[in-house]
């Protein structure tokens, strides 16, 4: 490392050159990468979720692995396994796709709970134990998982405790008409070109150090706590509020957003902007939400809006 760190804005610009529109999604991806967390993207098929994750890995220059989650997947398909070598008479360890800088867990809710657990354990511990040996995962290690909210038949919903392991849940929505026209003009049936390797893994690790040093005023920390506390107040549709992990996530994302904006201090806007991504997957809603046909995103937005800014 020559001591010169490429600013994270370069990565964001490279992703924006590949993925048309979806600026908020790309920003969330880069912020989560800086904050050192894992990401779950939820949206209908065909909205460039996989492309965005792949572009992120390519632009960072790290190793990238993709696992399509299916009902017959086994934990060893993710973390690796031990194979008996008849010639040497010994067991050898074959590492699974989890040993990558960026792992794309496509349609994570299509695999049964034990596979999800194996992956989520690796996400939390950042190491994997196969037989008698423990293997540390590479740094940075980011899991980008995708979920399709529409086709829920034959899926295994991730429990709240496991969703909590993801730093952010980002909603991917349909592009605007002008963006869709640009998609048509740019690609027109051809495979979209992935960005070049514009930053290094060392840059990402340096960003993380810089993000830790971003100043978060005590009043902003209180604001983050108040946002999470608002989710725990009695509510018609919220069964259970967010955990303290959400508070940590909001603070980490606010710092990352400030760094992405070229600042070494966070503002109320950073905290507020981080809140939806950090909270939406950490709330447990009750049955009334379904029976009254209420959009859970509206609940999250209203809860955030109910907290005065510092």
């Amino acid at each position: 490392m020559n001591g010169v760190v490429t600013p994270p804005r370069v990565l964001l610009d490279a992703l924006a050159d590949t993925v048309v529109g979806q600026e908020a999604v790309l920003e969330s991806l880069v912020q989560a990468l800086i904050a050192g967390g894992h990401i779950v993207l939820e949206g209908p098929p065909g909205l460039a979720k996989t492309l965005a994750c792949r572009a992120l890995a390519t632009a960072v220059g790290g190793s990238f692995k993709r696992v399509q989650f299916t009902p017959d997947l086994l934990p060893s398909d993710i973390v690796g396994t031990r194979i008996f070598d008849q010639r040497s008479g010994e067991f050898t360890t074959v590492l699974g796709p989890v040993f990558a800088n960026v792992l794309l867990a496509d349609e994570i809710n299509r695999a049964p709970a034990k596979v999800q657990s194996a992956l989520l354990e690796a996400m939390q511990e950042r190491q994997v134990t196969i037989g008698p040996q423990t293997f540390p995962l590479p740094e940075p290690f980011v899991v980008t998982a995708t979920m399709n909210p529409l086709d829920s038949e034959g899926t295994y919903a991730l429990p709240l405790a496991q969703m909590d392991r993801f730093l952010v849940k980002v909603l991917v929505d349909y592009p605007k008409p002008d963006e869709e026209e640009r998609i048509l003009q740019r690609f027109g049936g051809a495979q979209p070109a992935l960005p070049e390797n514009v930053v290094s893994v060392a840059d990402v690790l340096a960003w993380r150090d810089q993000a830790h040093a971003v100043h978060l005023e005590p009043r902003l920390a209180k604001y983050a706590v108040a946002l999470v506390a608002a989710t725990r107040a009695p509510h018609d549709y919220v069964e259970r509020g967010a955990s303290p992990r959400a508070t940590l996530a909001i603070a980490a994302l606010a710092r990352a957003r400030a760094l992405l904006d070229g600042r070494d201090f966070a503002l109320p806007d950073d905290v507020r902007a981080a809140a939806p991504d950090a909270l939406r997957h950490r709330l447990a809603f009750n049955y009334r939400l379904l029976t009254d046909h209420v959009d859970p995103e509206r609940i999250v937005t209203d809860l955030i809006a109910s907290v005065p800014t510092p």
Partner: protein
Amino acid sequence: MDLFAPFVAPAAAQQLVRLHVRQFAMSADPLSLRVGETLRLRIVTRVDENLLELDNVTLPDLSGFESLGDERQCTTAYRGSQCVETMTLTPTLPGDRTIAGATLEAIDARTGRAVQFSSNTVTVHVEGEPVPNYFLQALFDGLIRPFLVLLLVAVVGYAALWGWRRRPKPVAPPPPVAAAPPPPPAPVVPPLRSLVDALAAEPTRANALAVRGELRRSIGAREEETLADLRARKATRGDADLDAALRATEIAAFADDSRLQGAIADAIPPLRRLAGPPAEAVL
């Protein structure tokens, strides 16, 4: 759950719709209420097919309830439909009332056979109210109520008469007193100007926060609005100085101590243009 009870003769099956039924359930809210109060009974049907309406649903026997309204709605999702029938009911009799399950007749797409799907039953606890005593009611309506009305009129009339007799005698107005001369007007210093003066004289975070608060108040910022919100709704109405002052005081309020003086120095010029020169200079 016994959803797939075969029953229908093959001849009748020809008029039925072929459905892949995922859910056929009934619920009531609330499950405990008093006579005269209302409850909502919902029958939810989820099928894999796209439907505009769902016929062949037979409602349960609702004796002991009076129907106040009935609404049917089918919504089509990415895959399949959900049809919800909502009835507003009011119980007429107390006790535990069990509403038998609704039924749906259709051709089961899984088997190709005509079947009758049955929903779950719902038990509602209805608390009674005292049975009215019609004799006492008639007595009250015929005799006691007119008497009470007359009594009320008499009391009000007497009170008005008593008050008129005890009314105060008119008093002559006091002689006019010469008004004291008004104090000399204090120099009017707008709050923002005085706060900017204080910030310039003493560049502290507390003074920066005070200026920020006054700026936000002056443009009608709500307490939940951030700087981005204010800019999004064009609260500054294109005033570049106001925008710059808001931005600079925001930084002064939240930057670390090493940046505080620089941020305040950046904030003073646009603030001066907004608030005017220092108060001493005017005096």
